């Protein structure tokens, strides 16, 4: 029951940041909000595993933590240079 309550409170935080993601004035606000949502979802996936009683699926949150970092840096690099490659 406790994990369910925590899952719901995380959803509330998700909603708050989603407002910033949609309403954010500059692109940097949106990128920051997307990155924070990624972190929150990483936590939510692992807590969901505990709620279902099968916490073996934490691998997904590891993958997501890696992907979230790479994606954010890729978006920022594209915004900086206008392309992803070196040439």
């Amino acid at each position, binding site marked *: 029951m406790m994990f*369910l309550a925590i*899952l719901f409170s995380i*959803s509330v935080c*998700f909603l708050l940041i*989603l407002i910033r*993601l*949609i309403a954010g004035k500059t*692109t940097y606000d*949106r*990128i920051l909000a*997307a990155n924070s*949502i*990624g972190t929150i*979802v990483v936590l*939510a*996936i692992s807590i*969901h*595993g505990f709620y*279902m009683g099968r916490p073996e*699926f934490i*691998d*997904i949150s590891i*993958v*997501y933590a*890696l*992907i*979230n970092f*790479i*994606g954010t840096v*890729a*978006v920022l690099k*594209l*915004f900086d240079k*206008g*392309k*992803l*490659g070196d040439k």
Partner: protein
Amino acid sequence: MITEIIINAFLVSFMLVIALFIVNTRKVIFTILLAGTYSLVAALMFVSLDAVDVAFTEASVGAGISTILFLAALSFLPKEEVQESFNKNDIFALSICLLIGGLLIWASYDLPMVGNENNPVHQHLVSDFIEGSKNHIGIPNVVTAILASYRGYDTFGETIVIYTAGLAVFILLYNRTSKETNKSVKNEISKK
């Protein structure tokens, strides 16, 4: 049971909100950001439906690689989407889409109910796969065992495709001129 329905409803409404905003935004980079967020919620949804392998794929391919591929493609695109005006041909296309979609939904009523244990799919082989795959092959994941080993013969074409893709990656990574360029770079450095 109720709590699971509530969780799923929450996630689906998140996905709906994000999808509406994806349709609404005109800046392509925001669309990509929102699409990444969307597929991340989808991964959470698959976890709550107990489809862990699909969630794994969604997290790594849907949220990771496709976002980066979209970004790489974006550098060749204009930054803003052009607002398209309404065309008469669109009505024709729309009606065809609606017709075919309706037909497909109608046809789907003849399929057996999803999750019914009396379905022909669940009657034979499946139990054998689930019980025996660990001992037959020695790979703990049933999905991997079925894809890579049991279906090894009837997905022979698929295996060839994957092999070709791997070969292509090696050919791309293999630097044919590496030794010569290395020499020339070293020469330049020594000249300086």
